[in-house]
């Protein structure tokens, strides 16, 4: 019994790690209608940005995290301005390929500056805790706490603020949004900032959970996509549910398959999903009138 609970808990934790970038992916997809293959690289770059403040400048983790998140969001906005905006009128496939290019640039900039060897944040190690028979370490607590807080924050913005309404409007009917006075570029910029901030946060959490290396984000791309598609791309928040389901499944699968095959599990889930229910668990045919 304890073992299953432990597995479930670990699954939720790893699911939360994927949930943040999956939400970022779903957000940019719903507003911009293209799949951002640079999501992994954004995660990596964000994680290293925080590392630069933390280990490079010697700042404590919290200010480093805040600075890194702002920087990550800002870089995402900059990339949109430089790369995706000139391609706004083009086909989604062009944007797809462009995002691959962005992924190469971001990931290898990190590699160029920081090298290939894994690094870690300057934090004090701590002994794991025990909660009701579960083995919980501090990193996992951070992941759960920060993860849920980030997701809740984005949900509140998306559902209840004017910005969130504008984002949903642009996603739902872009020409009408323009006719209602919404300046698309501003909404798009805000969407990228949120996406970049989410990816950076996820990068930090992954970096805390294990180490940082230039491949870290790329290794998550398949899982992030699988989670977003599982949730149903039409409802951004559903990506979170997809990620949790995937996280638990992946954790369960470690009973029989080696942990390094996690992307393989995600890919298998993705394949089955696309064959039988491509609109995801929670997706429905989108109202398009």
């Amino acid at each position: 019994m304890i073992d299953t609970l432990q597995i479930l808990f670990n699954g939720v934790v790893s699911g939360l790690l994927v949930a943040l970038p999956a939400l970022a992916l779903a957000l940019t997809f719903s507003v911009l209608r293209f799949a951002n293959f640079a999501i992994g690289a954004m995660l990596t770059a964000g994680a290293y940005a925080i590392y630069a403040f933390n280990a490079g400048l010697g700042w404590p983790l919290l200010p480093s995290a805040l600075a890194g998140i702002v920087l990550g969001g800002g870089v995402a906005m900059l990339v949109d301005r430089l790369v995706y905006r000139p391609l706004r009128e083009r086909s989604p496939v062009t944007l797809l390929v462009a995002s691959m290019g962005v992924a190469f640039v971001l990931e290898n900039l990190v590699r160029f500056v920081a090298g290939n060897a894994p690094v870690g944040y300057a934090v004090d190690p701590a002994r794991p805790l025990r909660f009701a028979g579960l083995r919980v370490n501090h990193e996992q607590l951070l992941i759960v706490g920060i993860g849920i807080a980030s997701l809740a924050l984005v949900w509140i913005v998306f559902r209840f603020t004017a910005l969130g309404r504008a984002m949903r409007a642009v996603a739902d009917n872009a020409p009408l949004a323009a006719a209602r006075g919404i300046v698309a570029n501003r909404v798009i910029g805000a969407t990228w900032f949120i996406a970049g901030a989410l990816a950076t946060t996820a990068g930090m959490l992954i970096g805390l959970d294990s180490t940082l290396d230039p491949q870290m984000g790329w290794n998550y791309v398949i899982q992030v996509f699988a989670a977003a598609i599982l949730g149903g791309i039409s409802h951004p928040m559903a990506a979170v549910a997809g990620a949790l389901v995937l996280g638990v499944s992946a954790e369960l699968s470690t009973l029989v398959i080696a942990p390094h095959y996690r992307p393989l599990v995600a890919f298998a889930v993705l394949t089955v999903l696309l064959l039988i229910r491509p609109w995801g668990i929670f997706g429905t045919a989108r109202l398009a009138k």
Partner: protein
Amino acid sequence: MSAPLILQGVTAGYHGKAIVHDVSLEVPAGGALTVIGPNGSGKSTLLKSVVGLVSLMAGSMRLGEREIDRLDAPARTRLGLAYVPQERNVFPNLSVADNLRLGWETLHGRGGALSRAQGRARESARRDEVLALFPEIADRLATPAGLLSGGQRQMAAMASALMQGPSLLVLDEPSAGLSPRNASLLFDRIADIRATGITLLMIEQNVQLGLRVADHGVVLVNGEVRLRASADHLLHHADLPALFFGHAPALSS
């Protein structure tokens, strides 16, 4: 709070090809003008050029004191222009309430000088005014707009536009897709909207309904103005079939 709309020598189209040629018209403040004409006459293009979704190739446009022909759609909206397209005129996955809020937030988003509470109160008041015109949707506020019936959706679309508190309302074929009864009902509401003093520019296939609520009408054929007259004259005295099709129809009514 209405403004006059003046078009002069407007030529507009897509990809370098002009659809409307040298169109001039004027809607006085608080007045109503309906553009009628056969299919393919360029009515929709003309409207889109007024709204800012199609750019001008020649000519000028003025809304009140402002030259608007170089402004994009969001900018024109902020100047007081509200547009109800023919299709895709609501945000289908957003609730009716959210659709209305968006209409309000267009112009009053940040609140500006108003405090949050004041802004909220103003919005509420405006919403009550608008819903008084369209009581049918007042109890469907939580429904996703895409799930409304055709007639209700048109009302929601119009209500959302009115939330902006516009000085010019631009309607693209309001009767499209509606049953004759619903269309007639809708036009009663449009007459009520007119009574609040807003300037109205409309294109309509249904000549009877379209001219009923207007002061003046313009007949557009092949992108050119063929006739400019009072609504009354167009309804009762003009030979519209001849104007539309260039000859009298074989069947008489």
